[in-house]
């Protein structure tokens, strides 16, 4: 049988009961739409988070004191017997492929200027901070390149702090009190906005040595390292570990590459998306039951038609393929409809809730259609076989 | 008690209009045994359906037992049908998944009659129409004659005033057909009004009053 005729025949039998076909296809469509929508949201979230993270650049490694992790952060960053020092950071600059090694301490402090006071996040960093985290100064300059162990009392303000304390005036050259000590403002950062909940504009940057003193700490919380993008990550990590272990006598620190973190996060999010999509896929399963039901009824209704076909020379296999073809076509139509439906809802969501990230990759769409057809075929097997097995004489005799 | 005046009924078939009944006037007294005959397409079935309140005339009036039933709502028609009319069809129209007695019971179930009362009537009907041994069988397990007897019993279940039979022997062999006619005539003997549509002159001539129709109009109305 020519393929074109096959399609025509199948299409005709589906078109004979338009409403029935429509409703059956609708069942599959709803299932596919649910799956597409959910995976789109999952994919959107994934991209969103990756984007947020990679705002800092992907070739970042964080070194923190201690090895024990609770909830993703190192306990040693809080308190530790073995400090990570500024000297360690300076030493790590010599590690292979390392571009920048910037020390970090973080905390909370009051910033005061002429009676106005603001509680801000305080970052004690080295002069290479802007390179490490790809942030830029809007006016003035960042902390000067000097020995971080004996840095002068300079401060760089985040854009929001500058606005709140100085209004429209330029804060450059003015003095502020940070945590009770006097600092001179030498720069204002570009507005960066919120990153994963942290407001980067409501911060003040001071030299790390002074911050350590202010907080009465010996140990840094973290050292940010950027490496050459083309360098093999494993080698970079090895180099870092070697240098620090030599200095500390033991591996008493944790090296976390952002790449690895992204991978882990990606896996977790992927698993969640899969689980949720599977739940949506239950609708698809029910849609499949729908096809099964309608086809079963259809075979019973068309018994005499099947008998006739056999009488004029159709083989069992041909009958089987005919009914399977109907099932597949039905499901494919439903799948296409579902794709359209799911995609439009996703777009509507994007418009209605801009905060919700949604993204539908082409590969998902293709997969979804294939899954729909597979469901149709699976559902169609039993009725098709029953049709193929009908005895032509009996079939013709039935009314 | 049945009074039809100026009854008109037109059907649209494809692009054409077919006037199935043309200004039919007919009066039927209670207890009459009447046959309606005519060639195919003469409107005899339509007339039966109108009398049986299965179909509504497009024009004219229909008085049943002194009440004008021409303009009743669908639900009211259904109720009157249930109480006063009993149909017997050529193709029996038994519900295939129900047993003989469940089929007979149907009108009583629809009317909401309680099971005890239904059982009583059922037993009476089964006995009267010789169906006691066949009560639990399904239609595909009954002969044609038995099926039609079940249909008649069903038609009689609500003790209707009128029995309307549309070609009741059309699907039966001659002998069985005679048996079924005997059953119908027993109903008449007990005082029921029996209206019979048939194209078989032998069957039709048994009636006491013979109405003949051609092209939607009554052309003859004889009594014997």
């Amino acid at each position, binding site marked *: 049988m020519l393929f074109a005729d096959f399609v025509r025949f199948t299409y005709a039998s589906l078109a004979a009961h338009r409403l029935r076909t429509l409703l059956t296809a609708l069942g599959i469509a709803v299932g596919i739409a649910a799956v597409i929508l959910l995976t789109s949201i999952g994919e959107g979230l994934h991209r969103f988070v990756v984007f947020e993270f990679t705002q800092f650049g992907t070739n970042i490694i964080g070194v923190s004191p201690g090895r024990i992790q609770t909830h993703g952060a190192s306990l040693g960053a809080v*308190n530790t017997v073995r400090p990570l020092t500024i000297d360690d950071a300076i030493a790590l600059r010599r590690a292979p492929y390392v571009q920048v090694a910037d020390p970090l301490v973080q905390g909370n402090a009051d910033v005061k200027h002429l009676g106005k006071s603001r509680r801000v996040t305080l970052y004690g960093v080295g002069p290479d901070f802007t390179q490490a985290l790809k942030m830029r100064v809007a006016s003035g300059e960042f902390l000067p390149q000097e020995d971080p162990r004996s840095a002068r009392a300079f401060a760089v303000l985040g854009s929001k702090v500058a606005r709140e304390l100085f209004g429209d005036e330029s804060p450059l050259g003015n003095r502020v009190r940070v945590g009770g000590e006097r600092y001179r403002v030498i720069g204002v950062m570009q507005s960066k906005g919120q990153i994963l909940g942290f407001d980067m504009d409501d911060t003040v940057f001071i030299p790390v040595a002074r911050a350590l003193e202010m907080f009465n700490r*010996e140990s840094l919380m973290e050292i940010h390292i950027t490496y050459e993008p083309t360098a093999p990550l494993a080698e970079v990590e090895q180099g870092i570990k070697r240098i620090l272990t030599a200095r500390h006598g033991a591996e008493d620190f944790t090296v976390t590459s952002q790449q690895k973190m992204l991978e882990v996060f990606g896996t977790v999010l992927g698993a969640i998306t899969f689980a949720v999509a599977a739940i949506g896929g239950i609708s698809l399963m029910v849609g499949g039951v729908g096809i099964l*039901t309608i086809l079963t009824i259809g075979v019973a209704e068309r018994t005499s038609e099947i008998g006739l076909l056999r009488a004029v020379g159709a083989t069992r296999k041909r009958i089987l393929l005919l009914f399977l073809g109907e099932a597949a076509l039905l499901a494919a139509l439903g799948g296409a409809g579902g794709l359209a439906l799911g995609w439009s809802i996703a777009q509507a969501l994007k418009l209605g809730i801009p905060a919700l990230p949604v993204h539908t990759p082409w590969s998902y769409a293709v997969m979804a259609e294939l899954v729909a057809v597979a469901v149709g075929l699976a559902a169609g097997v039993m009725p098709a076989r029953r049709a193929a097995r009908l005895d032509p004489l009996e079939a013709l005799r039935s009314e | 008690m049945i009074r039809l005046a100026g009854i008109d009924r037109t059907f649209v078939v494809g692009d054409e209009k077919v006037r199935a009944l043309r200004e039919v006037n007919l009066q039927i007294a209670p207890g009459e045994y009447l046959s309606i005959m005519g060639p195919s397409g003469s409107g005899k079935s339509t007339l039966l359906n109108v009398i049986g309140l299965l179909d509504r005339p497009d024009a004219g009036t229909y008085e049943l037992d002194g009440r004008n039933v021409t303009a009743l709502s669908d639900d009211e028609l259904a109720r009157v049908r249930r109480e006063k009319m009993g149909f017997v069809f050529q193709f029996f129209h038994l*519900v295939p998944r129900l047993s003989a007695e469940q089929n007979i019971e149907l009108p009583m179930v629809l009317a909401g009659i309680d099971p005890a009362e239904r059982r009583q009537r059922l037993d009476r009907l089964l006995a009267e129409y010789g169906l006691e041994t066949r009560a639990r069988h399904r239609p595909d397990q009954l002969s044609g004659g038995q099926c039609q007897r079940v249909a008649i019993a069903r038609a009689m279940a609500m003790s209707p005033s009128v029995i309307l039979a549309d070609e009741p022997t059309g699907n039966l062999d001659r002998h069985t057909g005679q048996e079924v006619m005997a059953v119908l005539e027993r109903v008449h003997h007990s005082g029921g009004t029996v209206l019979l549509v048939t194209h078989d002159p032998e069957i039709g001539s048994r009636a006491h009053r013979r109405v003949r129709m051609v092209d939607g109009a009554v052309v003859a109305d004889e009594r014997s």
Partner: protein
Amino acid sequence: MRLGDLLEFAWRVLRGYPARTLLILLAMGIGVAAVVAVTSLGEGARLYVVNQFGSLGTNLIIVLPGRSETAGAMPGVLVGKTPRNLTLEDALALMRSHAVRRIAPLVVGAADVHVGARIRETPVLGSTADLMDIRHMEVALGRFLPEIDPRQILPVCVIGAKVATELFGARPALGEWLRIGDRRFRIVGIMAKQGESMGFNTDEIVIVPLAAAQALFNTEALFRVLVEAKSREQIAYAKADVEEIIRLRHEGERDVTVITQDAVLATFDRILRALTLAVGGIAAISLAVAGILIMNVMLIAVTQRRREIGLLKALGATAAQIRMAFVTEAVLLAIGGAGVGLVVGQIARNVAVQLYPAIPFQSPWWALIAAPATAVITAVLFTLAPARRAARLDPVQALSRR
């Protein structure tokens, strides 16, 4: 028509078409089972979290150093060195509040713990004797930290079960000495196996007196202070008192964050409830698909049972009765399917309980009612159109076809 007869009529219709009845039951069953199973997973997670919090003691207030203007109440878990520390004196001052029953100051960090040649980097907690009661911890052997002046450095410690086995093997650890940094501590107690509880795995930590930890990590600053209010009703007063006491001590600055466990719990509870609802809703979409299937099958039935419908009308059935017959069929199907689904859903739940006995999987009551109800409502809704079509059939036409 009597209700009993109506039900029997519908029942016989369903039995008359076994294949399609079974398939619709299957479709409805899958939908309901999915909702029940999925919501019990979500509810299990919620109850687990709530119970975990409950095990911490619900009159708990947590005081954290640090506060930010824009971030408001959440400075983050480990962010928070400030020029003005949260000190032991601050913590002790909190006892002045009438609403506070107990306090426990906390210092945490990571350190190497040495036993002979064995070393293990372990989280070290510095606190007071009251910590055990506030955190509902249990000691398996020996005792917890003794009641001493929190400024006193006493060389004793309590260790977790896992720490004991890793550092001492099969040997009894009680009474032995270990070294942290350059200080030695005697083990006076071993914690009962508790596993992870909201952040801390007590099996893996070493607890020393507060002053000892402060010396170890060379810090005056407290990591946080745990405060137990006298009763649930007093929590709000306690919170207010705590904030005020600290503010006065810190020169009028509000540089701490005070969280009530209630608030955190409530947030988690809300989030997880919403999640369970959302996921249940997704599963319920399958019921809508089942409804579409019912509509499809009913429409076919109207066509296939034309003669029967025509007959019923001839026998005097009203339009309403015809509609009721169809709707009743649909309702029976929905209830049957829902019944099967509930059973299967419960089985799934039992399987989950077997796999993860720690989590209290249980379908929320609203799901057990909503799922079958949705099934029935969907079935009825999707049958209305076919039922109306059936009721409108012209009996003459319906009966005339062979």
